[in-house]
């Protein structure tokens, strides 16, 4: 008896809810989507006069940490522009591509989108973005030249660079001392010498060879493709020499296989004292503090390692404006506004990152921190010193992502399957050239 009535109750309740839901959502549901981002754009345009304009701004993982800052900039922009509303949305880093692709297919992309360089080039290659060399010509010279290039796919730049991170070196003082070193390494060559001794004495790894060869090789003066993005420049005697050296190190057991295959996370290994030094953006140093406070205590930072070429890699976050935006000019204005000197400086002070605008980088904020006890602050000082050397090494081509992948896969293959560097690089050249022709 009870069983029957139970099922009846549950089913009855579910049906009731269903009916309520159908009636409730058809009337109440539309209220939530009025003027929301999901509405087709023609509706949005109709109700808007020239004075009342709305643009949508999408960022990557900045909320809730920087809510106050972003909202402050938006308020300032709205105050300067009568009748303008900026709607801010934030999306998780891993989902941004999917989100942008799906909203592009239904024609309601945000007006200003925060993108990483690889994905930016893909979108630019699809012809979806506004050319900033033209649209933002008046502010172009305010930005570091090497950084402004980040949205370049060979025929113009399709984004305004926002915040930048260059690298510092985080190193474990305790491990280095155990191995008999008082000072950190400063060049790649030195770092390998250190690695050998550290590995022997402590069992920890030194140099980290991550699957990011496409940004590592230019540090050694070997660009992956030519500057105009038309042909592969990877197959040189220097490249063969570099790969041969790295393969030797791998055969000696000095390269952590997990990191090489992107299966292990460097901060976690560093926190376990299995890695003695790590070149990365100082804003990531504190990750170690979160994982193992004691190890962070024993750490210090130094300028990033340099190779034969006196350059440094910069990771750049960009702001792009889609061509299909209703208010292209306004969107470009906003992108320029949030990346101007004043706002970037304020952001750097909050977030431990670097600005893409020359004027902001000259601020006092970046000349401090050399004597700080906190490796992250100190590292940021070193990183800021390198802004002049900073370049975006992302391949200037819409297939940058595929090319980077094929470079890394080939390299991993050479090390792990005992391949021949010379042959591998020759094959790689062919593969890259065919990807460039696509």
């Amino acid at each position, binding site marked *: 008896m009870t069983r029957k009535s139970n099922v009846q109750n549950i089913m009855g309740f579910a049906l009731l809810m269903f009916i309520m839901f159908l009636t409730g*959502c058809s009337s109440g*549901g539309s209220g939530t989507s009025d003027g*929301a981002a*999901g509405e087709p754009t023609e509706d949005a345009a109709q109700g808007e006069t020239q004075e009342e304009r709305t643009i949508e701004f999408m960022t990557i993982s900045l909320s809730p940490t920087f809510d106050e800052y972003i909202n402050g900039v938006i308020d300032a922009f709205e105050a300067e522009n009568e009748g303008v509303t900026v709607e801010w949305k934030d999306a998780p880093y891993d989902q941004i591509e999917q989100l942008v692709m*799906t909203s592009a297919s239904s024609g309601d992309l945000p007006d200003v989108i925060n993108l990483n360089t690889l994905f930016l080039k893909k979108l630019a290659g699809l012809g979806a973005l506004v050319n900033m060399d033209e649209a933002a010509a008046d502010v172009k010279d305010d930005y570091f030249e090497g950084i402004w290039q980040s949205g370049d796919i060979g025929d113009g730049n399709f984004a305004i660079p926002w915040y930048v991170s260059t690298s510092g070196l985080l190193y474990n003082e305790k491990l280095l001392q155990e191995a008999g070193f008082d000072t950190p390494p400063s060049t790649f060559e030195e770092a390998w010498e250190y690695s050998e001794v550290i590995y022997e004495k402590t069992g920890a790894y030194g140099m980290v060879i991550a699957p990011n060869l496409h940004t590592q090789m230019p540090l050694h003066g070997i660009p992956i493709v030519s500057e105009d993005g038309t042909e592969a420049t990877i197959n040189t005697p220097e490249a063969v020499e570099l790969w041969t050296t790295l393969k030797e190190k791998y055969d000696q057991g000095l390269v952590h296989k997990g990191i090489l295959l992107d299966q292990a996370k460097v901060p976690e290994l560093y926190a376990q004292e299995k890695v003695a030094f790590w070149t990365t953006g100082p804003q990531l140093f*504190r*990750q170690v503090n*979160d994982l193992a406070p004691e*190890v962070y205590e024993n750490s210090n930072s130094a300028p990033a390692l340099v190779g034969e070429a006196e350059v440094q890699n910069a990771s750049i976050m960009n702001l792009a404006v889609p061509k299909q935006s209703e208010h292209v000019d306004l969107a470009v204005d906003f992108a320029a506004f949030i990346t101007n000197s004043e706002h970037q400086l304020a952001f750097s002070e909050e977030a431990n*990152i670097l600005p893409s605008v020359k004027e902001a980088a000259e601020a006092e904020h970046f000349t401090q921190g050399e004597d700080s006890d906190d490796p992250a602050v100190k590292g940021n000082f070193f990183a800021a010193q390198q802004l002049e050397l900073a370049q975006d090494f992302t391949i200037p081509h819409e297939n940058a992502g595929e090319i980077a992948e094929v470079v890394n896969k080939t390299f991993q293959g050479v090390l792990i399957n005992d391949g021949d560097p010379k042959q591998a690089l020759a094959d790689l050249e062919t593969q890259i050239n065919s990807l460039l022709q696509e």
Partner: protein
Amino acid sequence: MGQPSTEVKPYLKKEKWSKRKITRLGVIYFFLLLLASFTIIPFLWTISISLKGDGDPIFSMPPQFIPEHWTLNNFIEVWNTVPIPTYLRNSVLLTIFGVSLPLITSALAAFPLARMKFKGRQFLFILIISTMMIPSEVTMIPMYLVINELNLMGTFAGVIVPGALSPFGIFLLRQAFLNIPKEIEESAIIDGANVWQIFWRILLPMVKPMLGTLCILFFISEWNSFLWPLLILQDESMHPLTVGLYKLQGTFVTNTRLIAAGAMIALIPVIAVFIALQRSFIDAAFSSSIKG
């Protein structure tokens, strides 16, 4: 239903505890425990991290399982950082419909497929089942466009509608209906029951274990669904827990302790539902015979 596991206990008591049996059970239990620990250690590890204070290392050698400065601050901070009650409400709403709708539709579709004779029945069934072969990634963009055309963007309905029909549910319930002897139905017809009564009063109660199983499966998938609600719901105040908690993952530094605490908050309802429904879940797994 009665007491669970009543058949097992007397059996244990009756049989003498011979040496052979003890070793046999010992070996079995050892492997079972090993298997269980494999699945439960990550969970315990997460609890441990979520209770760790700022001074406690997450990665240390040897690992620290019991937090030295244990604290509930991480939970409090999660609560203060993201609007948990709002997310929870959205998750509950989405899940209620995300579970009840496919349950209702599966039962209504499975019954004729299992019990009624009509032309093309087999073909129809195969057609429904074959949709299970298409990966959801493939249908995502078309589905998005349809929802957009229906003007359901940014509504809960847009999240729920695509999942309201479940070929998997239809398949399982059809199997369950097929397992019920025809005689029961026939005797009901003799007693003057109509089709609806047979369905509602006789067959549905008999497949309760399967309904419970589906309930758990739908609940878990709906509660944990992430990408689809993220795509459809633009408005943050409508985000479910899974999407909302993602905010804890910062751009620069991720606070692992907060993430662990957030994961625990999201897990508690799942565990509660599982415990509440687990008996029918087990029943379904072993329901090979029907108790008259």
